[in-house]
């Protein structure tokens, strides 16, 4: 079913999700996408050798031609797996891998462990949800008596309205009738990166015109955190999109060269469009 162009022939597929995995066809791999991810993740297949565009193209083609053959589960599974592949590949394509210091490497593991913990926890809650269904089905086999006190019993009605004035009633009505204010989302748990793409775009626009031809490695040499390198990469892409810089590469997977080609002192406002990268 899966013909894999690698040395290894017996590889257990990754059972991340239930259901049939969408098949993908690329020059070096043909088979379920979860197997592709598994091979890449376990280094049995170099992600750099797998062009991702055909993976997406073939899936989109199937979606166009025979949408009924791809159930919703398979579609979401594909999206998840494709996202994982893109993430892996983009990480590998980022420069500066060799000189990462140990702290950052540790931070990377830490991040991964957090993600793993989150995945495990979610998995556990999904299983708990099934247990809830079982519990409630069992509980539903018993019906509670809810008949209440017989009318024959005299119930004294104490004055619960003691102390309630018409004004307080009006205020209670306003409280009740008020549109529920949507509580603001608490972002306090989110670590806000100190540097954003738009800030970096502005910083680069200030320094690049005078810098001449610089390599991306030089440009990011002073940076310590991976996230800053990524932000710089995105900022360069943004400037490239705006036509302010030209990005070249002497050889495949060689260092990126960045040359400023825009006007010398761009107005900062012109670059405001990159704000959406924030966060």
């Amino acid at each position, binding site marked *: 079913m899966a013909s894999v162009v690698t040395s290894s022939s017996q590889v257990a597929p990754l059972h991340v999700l239930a259901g049939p995995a969408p098949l993908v066809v690329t020059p070096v791999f043909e088979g379920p996408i979860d197997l592709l991810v598994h091979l890449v993740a376990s280094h049995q297949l170099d992600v750099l050798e797998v062009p991702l565009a055909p993976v997406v193209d073939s899936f989109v083609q199937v979606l166009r031609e025979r949408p009924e053959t791809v159930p919703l589960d398979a579609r979401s599974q594909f999206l998840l797996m494709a996202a994982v592949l893109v993430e892996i590949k983009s990480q590998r394509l980022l420069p500066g891998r060799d000189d990462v210091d140990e702290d950052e490497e540790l931070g990377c593991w830490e991040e991964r462990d957090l993600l793993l913990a989150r995945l495990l926890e979610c998995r556990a809650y999904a299983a708990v949800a099934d247990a809830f269904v079982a519990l409630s089905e069992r509980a539903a086999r018993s019906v509670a008596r809810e008949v209440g006190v017989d009318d024959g019993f*005299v119930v004294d009605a*104490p004055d619960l309205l003691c102390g309630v004035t018409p004004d307080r009633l009006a205020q*209670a009505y306003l409280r009740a009738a008020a549109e529920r204010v949507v509580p603001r989302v608490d972002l306090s748990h989110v670590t806000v990166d100190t540097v954003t793409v738009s800030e970096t775009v502005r910083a680069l626009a200030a320094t690049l015109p005078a810098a001449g031809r610089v390599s991306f490695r030089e440009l990011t040499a002073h940076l310590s955190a991976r996230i800053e390198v990524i932000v710089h990469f995105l900022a360069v892409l943004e400037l490239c999109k705006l036509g302010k810089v030209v990005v070249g590469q002497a050889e495949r997977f060689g260092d990126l060269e960045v040359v400023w080609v825009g006007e010398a002192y761009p107005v900062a406002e012109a670059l405001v469009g990159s704000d959406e990268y924030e966060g």
Partner: protein
Amino acid sequence: MTDDELVRAIEAVVMVAVEPVTPGLLAELAEEPVERVESACERLAASYREEARGFVLARVAGGYRYQTHPDLAPYVERFANRDVSHRLSSAALETLAIVAYRQPVSRAQIAALRGVNADGVVRLLEQRGYVVGVGRAQGPGQPVLYGTTDLFLERLGLDNLSQLPPVEDFLPGVDVVAELEDGLRPAGAPGAQGAGGPDGTGD
């Protein structure tokens, strides 16, 4: 069906029935002759009496139902009259206010406005005599529409509903709007009362 099974089925059905259950209905549910069901009910009622249970299986209005043993009326009365709190909760007060200003109003409309099920609160207000069903809405299910009672007016010292204060008088000024979100703090939290009435833009 054995005698034991029949008795158990009767116990279960009568336990959850709100109205007295006729022997005919019990017979239908158990798929047994009415006579057999009736004699099972009588035996069951007798056994409760012998065991001096706190409840009896009574034959009322042509059917069977559980009711408390007359001996235990003092406890039941105390239970029925227990005062969980001497004041209306803020949820109950808000519901009462909705009924007062929007009457006639259905429970579903109240629930839609408050964002939570209102059945329990409406039942409480009804039990206490502050609201009463005043009619039924047109449309599916013909839900009961509620209005306030004379007792409600009396307790608030009002002569009639037109004396309810206009809510516009209590709309917050622009300067207070900024503090509205703070008003979402649960009632009773420190400071909740401060800014001239908690939230509410009125629409």
